[in-house]
């Protein structure tokens, strides 16, 4: 049979062929095994890393900034999450035809945007628009453009706007404080961003959170000493006065006499911190703490305190002001009109420069100077406000008679409105000097008794005559309350000496005078020339704000006709 015949024939295939085949296949298989071992075991970490690099990412978790609120918890600055739209230009450049859609949504110029994308097509990051609303951000993402992503950021909103702008300040787009409290307490307010690991897809979208690396630390809240109601009241009245007077600017500082807290601080011109595109740099300045002025007649109460302290004067001591002027060296010191022989009360009531100068020259050189130093002139108030000026008091008691005379009625020394208010707080607190605070304090900080309380009370009583009918500022009166204060109309020092037509009008005072709760300084810079006297410019502002503040704070009136339990009085604003 054929089959049998074949079976019997020896195989014509050489024996080595299956062996070679087996070897070759075996070799290949072994090679695969070796390579697999190499990849899976020896090089495992490398491949794992490479794989993870392609989809695992560490992203930042933004932390919001602390809320700034007023003493009653009303918000003054709030951070709200917003989205910033960014793109990877190297990917977005592949979809240039759709850029106009994007530009339209973001309100950007389509051609400019397209050019920027092309210019940076070798880069991987480009902000398209920062701080857009979450709704707009969602619509941008709906376009599904390659390489376009969102980044969560926080934007600061200032509900009080212009009213508290100078105190609160503002942050820049990167959430760092730039001015005011935002700058002074930046470290406290700022949050620490956290980090987490996420899995991202090919388009760079986060598809899964993997683990937390660092939890974000939100910024801490801050409670200011400001009272928003008083702040608004002060803002409204100061703005109205500055506009009515055609003045260059103005400041108003309202302090709590017992604690040294700043209850209100406003300046004109102001700005809106929510819309900073058109801010005039001039209006950024918090004049009440950065600008120094010679305080002029507002230091006369301190001259009188020095006189009483020396023991050489008593409240009824008479001072001869002669013809209403006197010459010291090359200078002539004048009163507005001759006052003849006057006592210390009349000195304050009529604001006599001549009598003040006579006291200054009669006392030892360091008397008035030392007193001004004790109540804080030439020193920081302790408020720690950014850009705070410390004013200038000569480092040593003045030697020349003209300087000593000038110092006693407020020239040759300079101070910010806040410093002046600080000094008046010493008068209001029976001679105790406390640091100024922009933060709410739970109890009065420890103070230092720098003046004799009995003398201070006596001088305060003298200062009440300033608002009487014969005084320089009857317009500062507040019905129902006793007011103690002092006017100051100061010539501005310009280039080459004092400027004839430029004045600063001050009114510094306190109420209720029997036990002062509030201290206020009103400063109007260059009011209209024909009514620059403080009694007509700054005193009415003082009266209106003080009346409203006493009413809002429920301070009991101390100047009512005594008629039993029920008494009628004005609590009015105007």
């Amino acid at each position, binding site marked *: 049979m054929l089959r049998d015949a074949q079976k019997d024939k020896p195989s014509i295939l050489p024996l080595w062929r299956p062996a070679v085949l087996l070897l070759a296949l075996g070799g290949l298989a072994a090679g695969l095994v070796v390579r697999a071992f190499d990849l899976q075991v020896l090089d495992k970490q490398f491949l794992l890393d490479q794989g993870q690099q392609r989809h695992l990412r560490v992203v930042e978790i933004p932390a*919001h900034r602390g809320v700034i609120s007023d003493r009653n918890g*009303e*918000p003054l600055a*709030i*951070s*709200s*999450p917003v989205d910033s739209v960014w793109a990877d230009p190297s990917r977005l450049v592949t979809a240039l035809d759709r850029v106009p859609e994007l530009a339209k949504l973001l309100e950007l110029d389509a051609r400019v945007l397209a050019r920027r994308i092309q210019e940076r097509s070798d880069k991987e990051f480009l902000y398209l628009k920062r701080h857009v609303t*979450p709704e707009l951000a969602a619509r941008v993402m709906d376009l599904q453009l390659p390489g376009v992503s969102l980044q969560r950021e926080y934007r600061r*909103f200032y*509900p*009080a706007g212009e*009213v508290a702008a100078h105190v609160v300040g503002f942050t820049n787009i990167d959430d760092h404080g730039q001015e005011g409290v935002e700058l002074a307490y930046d470290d406290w307010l700022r949050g620490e961003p956290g980090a*987490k690991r996420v899995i991202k897809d090919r388009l760079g979208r986060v598809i*899964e*959170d*993997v*683990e*937390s690396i660092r939890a974000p630390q939100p910024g801490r809240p801050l409670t200011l000493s400001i009272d*928003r*109601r008083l702040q*608004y*009241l002060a803002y*409204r009245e100061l703005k109205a006065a500055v506009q009515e007077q055609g003045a260059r600017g103005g400041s108003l500082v309202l302090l709590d006499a017992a604690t040294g807290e700043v209850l209100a601080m406003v300046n004109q011109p102001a700005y809106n911190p929510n819309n900073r595109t058109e801010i005039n740099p001039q209006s950024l300045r918090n004049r009440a703490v950065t600008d120094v002025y010679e305080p002029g007649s507002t230091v006369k109460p301190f001259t009188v305190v020095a006189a009483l302290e020396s023991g050489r004067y008593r409240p009824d001591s008479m001072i001869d002001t002669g013809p209403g002027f006197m010459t010291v060296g090359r200078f002539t010191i004048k009163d507005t009109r001759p006052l003849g022989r006057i006592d210390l009360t009349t000195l304050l009531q009529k604001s006599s420069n001549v009598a003040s100068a006579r006291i200054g020259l009669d006392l030892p050189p360091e008397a008035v100077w030392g007193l001004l130093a004790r109540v804080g002139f030439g020193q920081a108030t302790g408020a720690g406000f950014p850009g705070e000026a410390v004013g200038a008091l000569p480092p040593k008691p003045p030697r020349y008679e003209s300087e000593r005379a000038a110092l006693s009625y407020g020239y040759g020394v300079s101070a910010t409105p806040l410093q002046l208010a600080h000094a008046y707080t010493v008068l209001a607190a029976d001679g105790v000097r406390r640091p100024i605070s922009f933060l709410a304090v739970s109890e009065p900080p420890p103070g230092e008794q720098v003046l004799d309380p009995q003398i201070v009370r006596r001088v305060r009583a003298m200062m009440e005559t300033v608002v009487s009918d014969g005084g320089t500022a009857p317009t500062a009166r507040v*019905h*129902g309350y006793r007011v103690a204060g002092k006017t100051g109309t100061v010539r501005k020092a310009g280039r080459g000496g004092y400027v004839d037509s430029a004045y600063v009008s001050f009114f510094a005072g306190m109420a209720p005078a029997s036990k002062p709760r509030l201290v206020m300084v009103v400063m109007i810079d260059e009011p209209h020339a024909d009514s620059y006297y403080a009694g007509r410019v700054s005193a009415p502002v003082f009266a209106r704000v003080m009346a409203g503040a006493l009413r809002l704070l429920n301070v*009991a*009136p101390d100047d*009512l006709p005594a008629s039993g*339990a*029920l*008494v*009628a*009085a*004005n*609590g*009015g*604003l*105007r």
Partner: protein
Amino acid sequence: MVNGALLLAVLGSALGVVYVQHQSRRLFVESQELQREADRLGVEWNMLQLEQAAWASHGRIERLARERLDMRIPSRDDVVILRQ
């Protein structure tokens, strides 16, 4: 015998690690979701606060009180002060 027990323990702890790892991821994802929810609520709360601040701004209240409600600050004769 000891080896067997150790082997079981190793296996058990290995499974435990896997399980805990899984749990930690699951919980982290959940916490992130809750975080997002908190964020969303935070945004809303901030918006409401800002809105409230806008409606309750002193200028607006004063204007409404004067114009719409015809209110005014009581004159000195209208105020009665009670003293204890």
